[in-house]
């Protein structure tokens, strides 16, 4: 029988190969991943990936939740950049409902999404440093993830699983402290990122460990449906923000960095450059916000936008809308919609089928980590074990997104 959880043991004493169960909880793999590897010395001969250790059946649960209750589920996909998932979901529903968003809300969203992209890339790139033996880089840059979380805290009250915003905008406007924190971040982060790059980018040891390791060609990457920084490192300039602009990304001037060989070093460089571009986008967004009318933080769609609690208690219309939204009684068209956003790891897609019921008829998440990860075991063959470990960190596989 084909077994889903193969655990090999060495029964043959004459066997030259060693079986290693790398995971499910191995300190080197940053998450719940199991790979059963056949090793010849330190070289991997073959590998089998087993996933699903934290499968929580989100697609099934989503079929039983009204739209606004699905946002917390998306938090737990790629929990390193929850706001991108939240807003991707909100934009999917807004697309379904044909809601036109005010520009100011789009720009506010762009700020939050780019901050989360930076947080996501900080994790990945510092972890590559950590896994190649450079703990310093990890400690230097990681505090900026903390600063980003403080901004999220100011905007929505939560840090990791943010549940940020609502269908139709944000639940409250950014306060002055949030803007001050963003300004402070924009001032301090470039210096630290420069310092981080100085430590790693021209570092002989780091280059020796990463350059030429786990090279992937464009063709293979496309064949395996790779997206995100991994695909761009191979030289394909595909970015959802450019190809299907959402949330007014077309108003911004930024570049899509691409690599050449798709090896770990290129992935590192692509992610670093994306952080610089994200900083650029946030700076532009801050400038653009100044010309937008103040105080608008959601679209004017009372039948879909959850009203503030105070109004619910004091205002009849708000009470009615609140009741209808909470009970899933909104009039959403019977239609199907696919919406994709550029998540930290690639194209995060939402395929939503609505049949007019209280809940989605079907909701499918196209999860980049899940699709990227399937190449890990095949590409590990012939690789050194220590290279496979940094290959996995450079793929930035997030267990929550992998298993949904």
């Amino acid at each position: 029988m084909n077994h889903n959880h193969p655990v090999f043991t060495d029964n043959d004493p004459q066997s030259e190969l060693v079986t290693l169960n790398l995971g499910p909880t191995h300190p080197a793999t940053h998450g719940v991943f199991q790979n059963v590897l056949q090793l010849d010395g330190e070289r991997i001969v073959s590998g089998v990936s087993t996933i699903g250790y934290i499968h929580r059946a989100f697609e099934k649960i989503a079929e039983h939740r009204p739209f606004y209750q699905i946002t917390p589920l998306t938090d737990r996909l790629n929990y390193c950049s929850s706001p991108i998932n939240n807003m991707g979901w909100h934009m999917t529903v807004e697309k379904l409902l044909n809601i036109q968003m005010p520009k100011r809300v789009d720009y506010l969203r762009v700020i939050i999404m780019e901050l989360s992209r930076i947080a996501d890339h900080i994790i990945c790139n510092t972890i590559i440093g950590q896994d190649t033996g450079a703990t310093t880089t990890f400690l230097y840059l990681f505090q900026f993830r903390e600063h980003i979380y403080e901004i999220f805290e100011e905007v929505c009250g939560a840090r990791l699983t943010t549940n940020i915003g609502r269908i139709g905008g944000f639940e409250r406007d950014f306060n002055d402290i949030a803007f001050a924190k963003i300004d402070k971040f924009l001032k301090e982060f470039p210096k630290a990122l420069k310092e981080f790059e100085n430590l790693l980018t021209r570092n002989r040891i780091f280059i020796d460990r990463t350059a030429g390791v786990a090279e992937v060609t464009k063709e293979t990457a496309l064949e395996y449906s790779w997206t995100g920084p991994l695909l761009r490192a191979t030289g394909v300039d595909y970015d959802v923000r450019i190809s299907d602009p959402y949330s007014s990304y077309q108003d911004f001037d930024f570049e899509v960095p691409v690599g050449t060989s798709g090896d770990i070093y290129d992935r590192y460089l692509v992610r670093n450059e994306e952080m610089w571009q994200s900083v650029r986008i946030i700076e532009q967004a801050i400038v653009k916000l100044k010309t937008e009318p103040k105080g608008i933080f959601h679209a004017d769609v009372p039948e879909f936008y959850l009203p503030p609690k105070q109004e619910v208690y004091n205002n009849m219309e708000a009470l009615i809308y609140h009741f209808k939204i909470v009970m899933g009684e909104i009039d959403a068209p019977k239609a199907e919609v696919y919406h994709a956003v550029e998540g930290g790891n690639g194209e995060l897609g939402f395929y939503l089928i609505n049949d007019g019921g209280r809940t989605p008829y079907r909701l499918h998440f196209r999860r980049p980590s899940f699709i990227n990860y399937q190449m890990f075991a095949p590409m590990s063959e012939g690789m050194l074990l220590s290279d496979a470990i940094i290959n996995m960190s450079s793929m930035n596989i997030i267990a929550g997104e992998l298993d949904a």
Partner: protein
Amino acid sequence: MEETTLNNDIHVKLTEKFGEKVTAVSEPYGLLTFVTYKDVIVNVLSHLKEELKFNFLTDITAVHYPGKDHGIAVVYHLHNMVEKVRIRIKVFISEQNPTIPTATTVWKGANWMERETYDLFGVKFEGHPDLRRILNMDDLGVHPMLKQYPLEDPNRVDKKDEFFGR
């Protein structure tokens, strides 16, 4: 507007090649959607990949419509990255015998997407190199995304649609 002409082009080209096998063409939210049949699905996919530049397989998933003759829809999302067009292809297959040829012959990346669809919906992809469950445990026994398996206590009455006039 531009997109619509492009979609028309693709539609015309597909109809030339596959005739009546391309049915129920629609464009929800600008995304060209059509239904085809399982005997030609691999040809359609490889034709789209080789001739019409849909080089990228975005996603494979399924939807369950209980009580119909062909109650399971296998849904493919393809992407033409050069011309920035997406396309959605559906194949309806029977619930009793949910089989469909595998797309792994066209894209290697279809492997895990099909395994996930098999795991959740029980769709058997013929010719798949390694069709086993991927997210759930082996002895689960059911394919949990099928609509007959309830998420929570089916006796709960506070969530039934008929109590809300639906």
